[in-house]
Structure formats: C-alpha cells, structure tokens
C-alpha cells in the first residue's frame, strides 16, 4: 500500500506516528511541503529559520540512491550558506576549472574557467545529490534541537487534496493507515512527475527531446585521471553520439553517453553493455566499479503558473530542463530563495497575499531563461536537422584552430542566477554610473571585506546597503525592520566591492531584498524614496 519507488542512499526520517493521526478534527498547519527532496528541505529551512512552523511530507524515509544532480552553482551554495549548510557542501565537493573539448578522434581545445576572485564560494562544485540533501537534513536536525519549528514526516504520502479559498485539506496515507490535516499554504516540491500537480489536474507543457542518455558512475581502481571536465562530440570510440566525463567526490566519475532515442533500455542497462561502452571510451584494461547507472530522457517544460491560490509549486514539479548547464536543482534552489521570504511576510501579515503573485512572475521568467539556455545547449549537442549538424561540425572544425569560434561551442552554459529585469517588485535605479550587474532585479554579487564577505553581512532580511553614504542604522517600514549594512570602498583592498557596486559612482545606497536581490539603488539616502521602495518590494501597491 505504501511501497518504496526507489531504494535509499540515507535513511534519515523513519516513519513515526504523529499526534495528528489521533486528533478528533484535522489539525491545521500554516505551511505543508509535499516532497522531502532538496527543494522541499530547503524550503523548510528557509521558513523554519523565520520562525514559521513547517511540516514536510515525504512518501519515503530518506534520500534516494543515485548521484543525479551533480553540479551545484555558486548561487545555490550562497543560499545554502544562508541556511547554515554551505560549508560542508564545499568541503565535500570537487572544484574543477579545466575543461577539454574533443571532436571525433582528438582534443580540439581546452579552456580554463578562470573564476572571478573575491567570492566566498566557488563558481560551482561537483557533488552527488544525496550528499547535498543530507547536509541540509543534518542542518534541519541541528535547528530542531534548538527549537526551530520544522517537522519531517517519512512514509507520509499525499493521496488527495481539496483546495479551498484560504486553505487546503490533505488526505495522507501512512503504514498505519490514513489521516487528514489542513494547511493554510501548500508547497509542491514533489519532483518532475509531481503527483500533486496530477491531483490538481494542472498542465505541464513543453518540448520533448528525442534522445536518451546513459549515466554510469564509476569508481576508478587507479585514480590518476585529472580533475577536468571532458566533453566529446561524435567520439570515434563509438560509445555514444556524445560523451561527458565529470569528477565527483569519493573518486567517482560521472560518464554520460548520448545513446539515441530508439534504444532497448533493459539491454543497455545490462552491466556487460555498460562496460562495453566504458571500455571503448576509457580504453581496455582500466579497472573500475560501476557505482550507479541510469538511463534518462528529458523535456524542457514548465507549468503555466506556479501559484494556484494557496498552492505553490517549486523546483522540478514546476519546471523541467535538460541537464546541460545544471539548471535543474540550481533553479529550484532559487525558487526557494524567492518564495521563502515572501511567504514569511504574508504569514506574518507584513505583506498582502498578492505578494505571492510576484513569486509566480519572477520564477516563471527565470524558468523561461533556464529553458532557453538548456534548449540551446541541447540543440548544439544533439543537432535535430542535417543543416544544424553541418553548422555544429563547422563550428567544431573552426574552433580547433580559431578562438573566434569557441564561444559558439555549447556543451552546457554555467548556471547563473536570473536577473529579474522589469520584475514587479523592482524599484528605481537612480544610480546610472553604477554597473549593470547590480541593477534592480540582480542578485548581489559577493565581494571580499577585511573580515569576511559582503553576502555574510546581508543575511536573509531587508537590508539598506550603504557604501560611503549616510543612513540611519535602523528604519521601521510598516513593521519591517530595515537594517543598515555600512560599508566603505576602503573595506575591500582588492577593489572588487567598488567595481561590482559603484562603477563610476562615488557612493551608493542599495535596498536589498531578503533573497539578496537588489530592489532599488540611489546615490544617497532619501527616506521617502526608501520607504516607497520597501513598500513596493513587499507588493503593497
């Protein structure tokens, strides 16, 4: 009746009976999250740390097996840092900078990512998804011990939902039978095949890519492979139309073969057939164990709307992309970043319920950007027409000798956070000399300070960031405590702070949202302008 759909890497939240199951009337919760994957747990961390009681339901008792998402980008790590679990991720993760591109029988060029200096976190890390999830659940346990109101219920499967105007009613199945609860708000984080989306009969449309990919995670017996990313177009070794090699922690390598649309999955998944491809790619005689393997296909699609009254969707349940460019889990974390503070303000009655519509607007915009980027990578890696294939190979041929063609080679673009240009919450940009990268809507770039980093100082509340400008230390705007972070260009000897936030300006006052996106900026503090911008950023007009 409640069978596992997959085996577990870590059993972290075994079923326990809840007093809700014995209540005479359904117990009402402020927020219920369906799905204890990375996005669900991150949402719980965000809301829980705001003091909002949050309940996570998962139909399993822990984290599923398999490396799955393996690239976690800087913005994701910065968000995790705010939740208190970024450090263990980076300590466990693998950082790489050198990539090599191959075509047919040879390497055509290599590149160094040369990440920008002066950030607390690297551009991204490679880390198996179960570790990413485990570090977050461990953080939940730490917080629970100090009274943070987060609860995770394993083997609690949502079976039915009734959506009312101001709450939802949930029928839940457990190993000891069904029970019913209510929630003021429900957040669907139950993955690409979201049962919740199905129960509500909601659309999920987009483009299906007719190709399949075989993943093999292998542990090398002799690990003398360098920590590099290899991407192979049309390899003459014959094991796939393209092949990707990526390093993960624990001496594990991800090999990803593009194997075509009409494949016999059962046949391809046989160990001898996986080994045949691996041996062709790596050369005979190399010893390795296969740790995990899987065949995946993908779509690029999203729901039309991520908000349906009191039900919000986040992560893969709301949008799905191709894996090229690591925009799945990373964009889901940005959903959480966007959703958490808004729902917090609404629940504390510091913002109107309509603020949640801006979650829909901003994250649909971001999903479209992610779908566009990952579709372009996919179209380059797996050309869909003869002429597209001709152009792709012409680019590769030219790229071997000429740098000009290399920006056209697209084996996945690094996942960057979305700038909410023309977003509904953006205020004025009254600092024309300042750089575009910190314009209203943009996520704050990190910069080094004598005693830490800029993002450490921003935290997760509304901040008035002043750089060589005066402002009051504290300002109460309709119940929202606006906290000043006072900086000077002298706080950063490297000049990165000035370059990223001032440009040609000599002073700046920036209103920063709790998700560390810029809401508005000026050259000097003007109380009425700041009050207006805070109100606007909270959806109060």
């Amino acid at each position: 009746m409640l069978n596992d759909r997959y085996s577990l890497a870590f059993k972290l939240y075994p079923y326990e009976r809840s007093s809700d199951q014995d209540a005479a009337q359904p117990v009402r919760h402020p927020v219920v999250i369906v799905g204890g994957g990375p996005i669900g747990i991150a949402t719980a961390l965000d809301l829980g740390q705001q003091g909002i009681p949050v309940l996570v339901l998962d139909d399993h008792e822990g984290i599923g097996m398999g490396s799955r998402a393996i690239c976690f980008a800087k913005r994701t790590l910065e968000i995790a840092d705010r939740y208190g679990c970024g450090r263990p991720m980076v300590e466990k993760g693998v950082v790489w900078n050198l990539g090599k591109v191959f075509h047919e029988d040879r390497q055509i060029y290599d590149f160094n990512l040369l990440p920008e200096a002066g950030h607390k976190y690297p551009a991204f890390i490679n880390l198996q998804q179960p570790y990413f999830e485990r570090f977050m659940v461990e953080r939940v346990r730490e917080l629970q011990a100090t009274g943070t109101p987060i609860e995770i219920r394993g083997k609690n499967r949502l079976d039915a939902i009734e959506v009312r105007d101001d709450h939802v009613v949930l029928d839940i199945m457990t190993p000891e039978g069904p029970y019913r609860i209510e929630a003021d708000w429900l957040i669907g984080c139950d993955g690409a095949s979201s049962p919740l989306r199905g129960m509500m009969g909601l659309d999920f449309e987009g483009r299906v890519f007719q190709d399949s990919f075989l993943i093999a995670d292998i542990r090398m017996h002799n690990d003398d492979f360098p920590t590099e990313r290899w991407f192979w177009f049309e390899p003459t070794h014959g094991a796939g139309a393209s092949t990707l090699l990526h390093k993960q922690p624990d001496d594990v390598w991800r090999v990803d073969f593009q194997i075509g649309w009409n494949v016999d999955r059962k046949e391809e998944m046989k160990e001898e057939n996986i080994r045949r491809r691996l041996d062709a790619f790596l050369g005979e005689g190399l010893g390795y164990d296969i740790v995990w393997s899987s065949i995946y296909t993908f779509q690029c699609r999203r729901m039309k709307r991520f908000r349906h009254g009191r039900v919000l969707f986040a992560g893969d349940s709301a949008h799905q992309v191709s894996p090229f460019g690591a925009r799945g889990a990373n964009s889901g974390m940005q959903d959480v970043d966007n959703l958490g503070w808004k729902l917090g303000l609404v629940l504390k009655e510091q913002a109107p319920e309509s603020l949640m519509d801006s979650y829909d607007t901003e994250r649909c915009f971001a999903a479209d950007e992610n779908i566009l980027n990952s579709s372009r990578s996919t179209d380059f890696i797996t050309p869909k027409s003869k002429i597209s294939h001709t152009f792709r190979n012409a680019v590769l041929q030219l790229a071997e000798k000429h740098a000009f063609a290399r920006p056209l080679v697209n084996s996945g673009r690094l996942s960057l956070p979305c700038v909410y240009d023309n977003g509904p919450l953006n205020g004025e940009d009254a600092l024309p000399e300042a750089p575009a990268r910190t314009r209203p809507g943009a996520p704050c770039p990190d910069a080094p300070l004598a005693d830490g980093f800029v993002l450490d100082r921003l935290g997760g509340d509304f901040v008035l960031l002043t750089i060589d400008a005066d402002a009051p230390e504290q300002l109460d705007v309709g119940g929202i405590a606006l906290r000043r972070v006072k900086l000077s260009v002298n706080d950063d000897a490297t000049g990165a702070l000035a370059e990223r936030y001032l440009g040609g300006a000599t002073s700046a006052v920036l209103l920063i949202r709790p998700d560390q996106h810029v809401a508005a900026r000026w050259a000097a503090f003007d109380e009425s302008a700041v009050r207006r911008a805070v109100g606007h950023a909270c959806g109060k007009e």
Partner: protein
Amino acid sequence: MDLILTPNITDPDGFYARLIAAHDGLSDEESAALNARLILVLANQIGNAAVLEQALALAQVGK
C-alpha cells in the same frame, strides 16, 4: 585590415539559435540557398577584398 579571429559576436548563443531557426522546415536545397544568400549579404557588409580573400582561404582549409 585583417580578418578578425578573436571572438567578436555579441550574444553568440542567441545568434547561433537564430541561425539554426532560420533553417527550420527548409529542404536541403532551400537551406543551401539560404546559406548562399546569407554569405553574399555578409560579404557585402565586409566589403574589403583582402579580408574576403582571407575568409575564403580560412574556410577552404577546413574542408
């Protein structure tokens, strides 16, 4: 004046997607004809015979 051999296209991904999309639904002959027209338009933009010669020579090496 020399042929530019360093990256020079603004928004390379956007340009590439637009280029491929221009061929959507075309037959092989129609695609070849589109490419021919595009090359002639771009050649006119370049104008300079020495640069065009360098471009032709570079493309021929790759064949």
